[in-house]
């Protein structure tokens, strides 16, 4: 966890309000503070400003897609260590590979299990 925070902060980015609500609810109930973004640009701005402990990113977002956002986060000195979980309906093998190539740490397929999301977030943050 970043110094000075009582709870780990997770950035959740998705242009679908339903997904954002479900992700936020599960993570807040699990003891995380959640920052919400509705598109890739907003997520990038929040990532740089808030330096979250982890990011859960949708792949198909307006303005900046999840793959490109992951690449940007990895390329920036300040944000490059933020672990990234991609949440995607595009879960064919090449898409998953593209996500890992861009620098994602994990991916979760939509429709998703909120419990599984929590477990993966905990696993990644626990490793740090």
């Amino acid at each position, binding site marked *: 966890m970043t110094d000075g925070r009582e709870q780990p902060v997770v950035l959740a980015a998705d242009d679908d309000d339903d997904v954002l609500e479900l992700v936020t609810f599960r993570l807040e109930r699990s003891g995380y503070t959640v920052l919400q973004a509705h598109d890739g640009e907003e997520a990038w701005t929040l990532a740089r400003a808030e330096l979250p402990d982890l990011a859960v990113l949708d792949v198909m977002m307006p303005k900046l897609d999840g793959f490109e956002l992951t690449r940007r986060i990895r390329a920036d000195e300040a944000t490059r260590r933020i672990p990234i979980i991609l949440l995607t309906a595009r879960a064919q093998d090449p898409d998953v590979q593209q996500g890992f190539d861009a620098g994602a740490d994990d991916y979760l397929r*939509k*429709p*998703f299990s909120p419990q599984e999301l929590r477990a993966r977030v905990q696993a990644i943050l626990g490793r740090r």
Partner: protein
Amino acid sequence: MNWVVLVGAALLVANTALVAVIAAQSWYGVRRLRGHDELVARLRRPAVEMVDGDPPAEPPPLARNEARVFAELLARYSRQVRGGPQERIVAYCEAHGLVDQELRRLESRRAWRRARAAFTLGDFGARRAVPALVRHLDDRSAEVRAAACRSLGNLGAVDAVPAVIDARVAARVPGAVAKLALLDIGPAAVAVLITLADDEEPLVRAAVVQLVGLLGGAADAAAIQGRLSDPAAPVRVATATALGRLGAREARDDLVTALADRVPGVRTAAAEALGGIGGRQAVDALLPLARTDEFEPARAAAEAVARADPALVVRAAEAPDAGPHLREAAGRVAL
């Protein structure tokens, strides 16, 4: 003169009344939309707490309009979640009679209502709606058929696979909708698909083989390999493509034989498949085809050699009889 004034006044009154009706309708529409949005905002949290709470929270008592919006939210969440939360949504919809309500609407005289019900039943995850949805693959409305097909995919209805294939082949549902539904059903559909690979209708066989290629694994290749000698060319094309996608090395000999098929499309598909499967024997068989001037098969063969053995395609392109396709493929390798 009086007559003209009277007509003018009547037109003015009618015009004013029309504008007033349009304005009222518009105002009512905006108000209704706003009310709906407010309900969505208010009910979102109780809906999520019911779907994913620890323990799941009982929803508050709801008025009729609230219950409708609550059900709409559950249907939307159901598209996004799986596992326990989705099961809770199904249980809620069953317990509150929502599934029965949509099943009744599925028999409505109005097509838009039937289509909406078909769509919603899929979102509710209502497995017991499968027989009714299969029946509506024959609905007189194209929208209802498409919605039923999409929902059968959502429900993972393996038992509906033959009906979906049938609807696709008969063009009762768009090919893309049927394909997406079968992809949603996933690998569980493969066993049923394989039983349809011997269907008497060539278009069914072609569709089945293509889907086995998309959904199956290497172990399923043997079940469709025999279709490489199918009397119908579209089936042979689909089989070659599927075998390539499945990486079926055991089909290499048959694919080499298919390089001499009388139909160019089959030769092209076989060449593309062999490019992915690779191996010395494949390359030896592809080179002569790559040197010919049959545009599609020769280009596919040259590309296949380049994929299987990039160094070889560069060497082969230097021969005087290499032909344009091998040289083009070698040029791409060099880049």
